[in-house]
């Protein structure tokens, strides 16, 4: 098998896998990146990138046939014509649910880096100490200071638009100019600032859309088309394809192999290290072995854990990393589908042009400083203001020329915001192997058994009421709050199941993301998270990955791995 030997293997090509491949290849390692799905070439394969509503046979909508074919995707906005083919389907990639679990997966080159929401926030110092302070789960083995320089590092390369606000709750970073707020948002922001005496802030979203060209990466910049999910021919947002992959390729050290399902990490009992991975070719069903000195698991939170559960089962029945009893446990996400909206009077003489990829953000303020609630942790809001259009008039009276003319003009201003709440790590929220159900390749699937617990449910009351109160304080009218279903996974921020910690008895990974039981295996996607914060996690995966790759290379140099 010498012909399949590399210095490093990276499993997965999404946000964290792309970073791992780039960093390791730039450090001179010969890297093999394995992707379970097909290749998608930057620009060339963004088939729908210039399509408009009228180019789709159903104007972009899902059909009843699609709904019948993909019942799990049909639960959310993930089912539509523009992105069809981009979300893993229930048919080929089943999973089972003890409790409803939304698992939205991108099985193709670039993974969900092509399909992500791009909101990019740093964790704050307290996020890393909260578990210890609250006596919940286990303490993080790292602190904000460990990650801060790596946040700087990845932000500069990825390109994050935002404003420096000087808030402890949401540390500033290396920002490009922000995506602008509109007149109504600016006005509401001022009113909230005043009403809450500077304790609550409505700020620009921090987003991985570049507001200035990055010619060194051949990225033109955001064109305000709001078509990010179709792949951006302008390199307007950070994705593996637009950013990390070209850099990794430029080194000449990277090999990419699509259609490569990693079925297990190969483990050597004597050296107590991994020797490589076994790959099932998704097209030919042939099995291959690839060997390497180090392995980075970046297969996405639950799939990295799935691989570990299937590895070294002759040593540990429940798989590599299971010796602590925590592998597969403490699955987290952000809970959402709760917030408020209303109409704004005035500003009839103001409008906007361009389609933003984001809106405003209200950072966490609950259980912060002197604020104390009947739950721990907190939440932030994302939202935007815009003028209504023809869509609000279907059920209203009117036909004919006057009706048509009225529909052709913008209507009243609306503003809405939805909360993103922290979910606590809880041992009983778990995923496990279900060997009674097999996927298209005969591989066992994951079974999901997780739901919101009492702390989250108490928090949701505030998430709805606070949104209504803030809009009220800002003079917004016709306020309507909502609180919908929020199964785990719906936030598409799966975290945990292979947490970092200080003690191999209670954690799967150490402070450098190494599997305690196999130190040359690193897990740097969302699986490593020990708690969830309430901010969008991808930026943290980037920083965590960059940090771990540099550590791994240093250890290789010292011959410690």
């Amino acid at each position, binding site marked *: 098998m010498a012909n399949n030997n590399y210095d490093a293997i990276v499993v997965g090509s999404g946000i964290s896998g792309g970073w791992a491949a780039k960093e390791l290849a730039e450090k001179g390692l010969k890297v093999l990146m394995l992707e379970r799905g*097909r290749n998608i070439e930057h620009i060339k394969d963004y088939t729908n990138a210039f399509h408009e509503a009228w180019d789709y046979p159903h104007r972009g909508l899902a059909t*009843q046939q699609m709904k019948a074919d993909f019942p799990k995707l049909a639960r959310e906005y993930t089912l539509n014509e*523009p992105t069809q083919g981009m979300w893993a389907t229930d048919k080929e990639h089943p999973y089972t649910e003890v409790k409803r679990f939304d698992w939205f997966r991108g099985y193709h080159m670039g993974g969900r880096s092509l399909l992500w929401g791009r909101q990019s926030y740093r964790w704050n110092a307290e996020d890393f100490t909260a578990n210890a302070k609250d006596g919940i789960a286990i303490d993080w083995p790292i602190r904000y200071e460990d990650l801060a320089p790596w946040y700087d590092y990845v932000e500069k390369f990825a390109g994050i638009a935002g404003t420096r606000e000087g808030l402890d709750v949401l540390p500033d970073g290396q920002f490009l100019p922000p995506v602008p707020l509109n007149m109504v948002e600016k006005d509401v922001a001022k009113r909230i600032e005043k009403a809450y005496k500077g304790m609550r802030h409505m700020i620009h979203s921090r987003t991985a859309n570049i507001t200035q060209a990055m010619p060194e990466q051949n990225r033109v910049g955001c064109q305000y088309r709001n078509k990010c999910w179709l792949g951006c021919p302008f390199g307007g947002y950070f994705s593996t394809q637009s950013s990390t992959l070209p850099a990794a390729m430029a080194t000449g050290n990277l090999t990419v192999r699509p259609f490569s399902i990693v079925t297990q990490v190969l483990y050597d009992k004597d050296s107590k290290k991994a020797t490589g991975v076994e790959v099932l070719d998704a097209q030919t069903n042939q099995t291959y072995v690839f060997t390497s000195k180090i392995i980075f698991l970046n297969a996405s939170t639950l799939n990295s854990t799935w691989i570990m559960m299937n590895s070294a089962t002759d040593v540990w029945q429940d798989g590599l990393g299971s010796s602590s009893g925590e592998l597969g446990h403490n699955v987290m996400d952000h809970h959402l589908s709760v917030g408020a909206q209303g109409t704004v009077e005035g500003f009839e003489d*103001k409008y906007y*042009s361009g389609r933003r990829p984001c809106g405003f953000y209200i950072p966490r303020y609950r259980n912060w400083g002197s604020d104390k609630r009947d739950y721990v942790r907190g939440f932030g809001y994302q939202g935007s203001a815009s003028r209504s259009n023809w869509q609000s008039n279907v059920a209203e009276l009117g036909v004919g020329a006057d009706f048509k003319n009225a529909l052709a003009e913008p209507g009243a201003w609306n503003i809405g915001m939805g909360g993103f709440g922290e979910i606590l790590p809880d041992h009983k929220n778990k995923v496990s192997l279900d060997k009674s159900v097999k996927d298209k390749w005969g591989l066992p699937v994951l079974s999901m058994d997780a739901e919101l617990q009492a702390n989250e449910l108490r928090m949701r009351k505030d998430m709805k009421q606070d949104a209504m109160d803030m809009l009220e304080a800002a003079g917004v009218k016709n306020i309507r709050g909502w609180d919908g279903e929020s199964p785990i996974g719906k936030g598409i921020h799966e975290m945990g199941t292979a947490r970092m910690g200080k003690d191999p008895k209670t954690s799967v990974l150490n402070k450098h993301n190494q599997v305690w039981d196999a130190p040359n295996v690193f897990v740097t996607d969302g699986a490593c998270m020990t708690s969830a914060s309430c901010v969008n996690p991808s930026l943290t995966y980037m920083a965590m990955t960059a940090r771990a790759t540099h550590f791994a290379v240093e250890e290789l140099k010292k011959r410690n791995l």
Partner: protein
Amino acid sequence: MERRNLLKMIAAATGVAMVGGRAFAYELHSPVPLSSTVFSSDDVMLFNEVADVIIPRTDTPGAKDANVGLMALILANDCYTQEERSALVQGLVTIDQQAQQRFGKPYLLLDTAQKLQYITQLDEDAKRANNQQELFYLSSKPYDKDRDENAATPHFFTLIKQLTLFSFFTSKLGATEVLRFEAIPGKYNGELDYKKGDRAWAT
């Protein structure tokens, strides 16, 4: 050995070795022919004549100019639930029956004033019927993932209106000539001045 050499060659040529085939990611969809639906070209004609009363040609194109009937019935066929589709099919029959009763001729033969009179009446009937069923809101989209399967079906004219508005304002003609559309805005201006009469953005 061959494999290794192949990898090297590809790597030398492109800087990266790509092994394995390619397949479409973002799927391209082909247009749906009317023949694959339960609707006929007569239905399309009737729908267009109703839709053109809702969105008539003024100094800008109207529903018939955009042939919304064809799009609307494809959407009704493929995106509607069984209940919604049945209500629409029955509604198209009802329109002709009511035209016959009130004016003594099929809807297509009504003059412009009669059509407007009848459709205005139908609009009010629909509003009243929906209110009685406590249906105060309808999604603007003919596919609504959140639609409650036990919910009452709206009056058929409300479905026609939904299909008309959606099909028209998402058509190229409606979006670019009645509304405003810019494919590549290039920037966001959050302080654009607006005066009454300026058109809304299509998206």
